[in-house]
């Protein structure tokens, strides 16, 4: 099937987000209709990506710049493909949700992700980068809990700062080179602007120590929203890093630190969704390290791992989401013995848990080993060893600790009520789980899409020694868990992370601004009371006389008008920053649509 046009997936998702608010409530509450409608955009995306020919599509002129919305090549296709798959699965998993907000925010977020992947220049990347940041912030608020409000604000603030690094970098780059071109940068020629852009990307990739937004926000997102969250933000960042910063040594080191750091924190964490969040940091670390090492094999490993990771991490969040949905908490100290009550949740969770651990027959095995072997073959022995250490920790936390304390024993069982789980959530998990297994058994299903040509021998995961080594590594990690199971029992504690420093920066900044302002205010209040007030009273007497005699008759009519306008304005001013942000996003998208249409 050849096609010379490219149906940009973002357009389908933006259109869906635009339509949702206007659907009559009766129709919307019909689950079949809602589900079918929510599937349209992901299916369009799937069709578009499986039929598109590589090339450059959708260049438009704006402010004397040529913006490219459709750079379709091997690298963008493979990311677009897995984005389309997880968007489809996420739509199925979230079909039962009635809140329109979930669909609107989710679609804007997904549209942003696709937009970044197919963007051919930095300005377009930035545009969709910000759309993603807004969409995901609202997705966090969709949880509609008190703690999600605070987490959403912190998340937004943080990503705004990251976005500003990116903006600063691309503007400086434009000033220096006269173009917004988004191509690979040779680390030897790195300029300040490249470092700024890299920093912006690293915020979204959750590179330690810029990562703390992730374990702060993701566990607080809504059940269905978290499935999108864990797929798009960090993996879009992995994509742009692979595109722009392959072979940067700093990323090789940073990625390896991420891989180990995330695992260490997950080891002591109690909230199951936060354990998974720390494991996003860790798993993205493998990808960042692969990109930093920069050989064809490690780059392919990074891409393959991103692909596999999106599937199994989505499934992990779906599984723990089911627990949260059914039980009302995801904290391990409150769970226990759920295997007999939610057996299929346990089964699909375990498929994902074995995948992330790199167990043979599951897709993590074919992607993780590629990155590690690539690092080792490139004689990065210490990095490869650290990645193996992270693999041990991954299996202990996600593969054993979490399911053991949630589904099995070790402590008292959960005895409370269990809310029935909608069928569509099971369907979503089953599709995702089967894909994880299929890729693990037939690596070629995934390998055929890897974009970087490898010279010499191709990587083959299914050899006896590799299978045995993985089995030994995981088996004896399991033994380590068995021996330390009393020690690792989770406690209801909050573990300090780098966000302690972020908050400190916030407090100091606020203090530095507030203190002088309050001093000036004190003085001003005093001056006003002694001087201003008296003269005002005098003026007031004069005007009141004038008012009674002359104005009343004229002004009353216009006063009514003003009052009515004021009421309308007051309605829009809800004093909720979330609402203002939503209006700003709507306005921005509206302007963007006009420019797109007329530009």
């Amino acid at each position, binding site marked *: 099937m050849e096609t010379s046009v490219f149906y940009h997936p973002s357009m389908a998702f933006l259109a869906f987000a635009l339509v949702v608010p206007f659907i009559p409530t009766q129709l919307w509450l019909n689950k079949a209709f809602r589900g079918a409608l929510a599937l349209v955009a992901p299916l369009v995306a799937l069709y578009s990506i499986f039929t598109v020919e590589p090339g450059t599509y959708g260049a438009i002129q704006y402010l004397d710049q040529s913006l490219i919305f459709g750079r379709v090549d091997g690298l963008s296709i493979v990311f677009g493909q897995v984005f389309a798959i997880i968007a489809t699965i996420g739509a199925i998993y979230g079909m039962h949700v009635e809140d329109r907000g979930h669909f609107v925010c989710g679609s804007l977020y997904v549209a942003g992700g696709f937009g970044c992947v197919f963007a051919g220049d930095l300005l377009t990347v930035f545009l969709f980068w910000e759309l993603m940041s807004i969409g995901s912030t609202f997705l966090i608020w969709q949880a509609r809990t*008190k*703690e999600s409000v*605070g*987490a959403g604000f912190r998340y937004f603030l943080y990503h705004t700062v990251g976005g500003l690094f990116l903006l600063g970098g691309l503007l400086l780059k434009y000033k220096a080179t006269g173009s917004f071109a988004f191509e690979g940068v040779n680390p030897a020629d790195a300029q300040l602007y490249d470092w700024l852009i890299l920093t912006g990307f690293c915020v979204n990739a959750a590179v330690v120590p810029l990562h703390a937004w992730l374990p702060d926000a993701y566990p607080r997102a809504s059940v269905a929203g978290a499935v999108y969250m864990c797929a798009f933000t960090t993996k879009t960042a992995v994509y742009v890093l692979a595109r722009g910063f392959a072979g940067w040594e700093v990323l090789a080191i940073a990625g390896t630190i991420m891989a180990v750091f995330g*695992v*260490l924190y997950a*080891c*002591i964490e109690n909230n199951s969704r936060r354990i998974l969040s720390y494991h996003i940091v860790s798993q993205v670390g493998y990808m960042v390290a692969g990109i930093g090492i920069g050989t064809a094999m490690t780059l392919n490993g990074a891409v393959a791992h991103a692909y596999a990771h999106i599937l199994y991490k989505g499934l992990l969040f779906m599984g723990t989401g089911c627990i949260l949905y059914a039980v009302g908490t995801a904290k391990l100290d409150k769970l226990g013995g759920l*295997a*007999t*009550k939610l*057996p*299929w949740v*346990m*089964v699909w969770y375990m498929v994902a848990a074995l995948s992330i651990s790199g167990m043979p027959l599951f897709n993590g095995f074919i992607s993780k080993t590629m990155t590690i072997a690539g690092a*080792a*073959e490139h004689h990065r*022995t210490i990095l*490869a*060893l650290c990645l*193996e*250490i992270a693999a*041990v*920790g991954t299996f*202990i936390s996600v593969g054993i600790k979490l399911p053991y304390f949630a589904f*099995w*024993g070790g402590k008292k069982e959960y005895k409370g009520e269990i809310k029935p789980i909608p069928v569509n959530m099971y369907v979503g998990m089953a599709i995702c789980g089967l894909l994880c297994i299929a890729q693990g058994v037939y690596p070629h299903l995934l390998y055929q899409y890897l974009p970087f040509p490898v010279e010499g021998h191709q990587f083959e995961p299914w*050899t*006896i*020694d590799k299978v*045995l*080594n*993985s*089995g*030994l*590594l*995981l*088996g*004896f*990690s*399991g*033994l*380590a*868990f*068995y*021996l*330390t199971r009393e*020690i*690792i029992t989770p*406690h*209801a*504690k*909050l*573990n*300090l*992370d780098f966000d302690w420093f972020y*908050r400190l920066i916030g407090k100091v900044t606020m203090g530095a601004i507030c203190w002088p302002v309050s001093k000036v205010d004190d003085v001003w209040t005093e001056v006003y009371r002694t001087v201003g007030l008296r003269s005002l009273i005098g003026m007031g007497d004069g005007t009141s006389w004038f008012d009674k005699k002359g104005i009343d008759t004229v002004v009353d009519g216009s006063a009514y008008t003003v009052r009515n306008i004021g009421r309308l304005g007051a309605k829009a001013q809800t004093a909720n920053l979330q609402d203002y942000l939503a209006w700003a996003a709507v306005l921005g998208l509206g302007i963007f649509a006009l420019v797109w249409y007329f530009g």
Partner: protein
Amino acid sequence: MSQNGLGDLLAKWRDNWKTWRIIFFVVLGVLVLLNIPFVTHHPHFGLDKYPGFFAAFGLIVGLVMVILMKKIIQPFIAREEDYYGD
């Protein structure tokens, strides 16, 4: 009602945890034995040319990681859950 069927099966398995533990140890033993003829083809780390390297690696790293994090690190960084007031 396949869900209950599976749930019952899992309940039965859980009650037989001692058998599963034996199976687990046997599997570990078999893996180590198999590692003797089928040792790593292209060793990268030096010691991985010897059988049982990955077994020892997994065990030692796992033990050290859990004990280090839970016993030494966590007491320093653990706070009450409402520490930030949210």
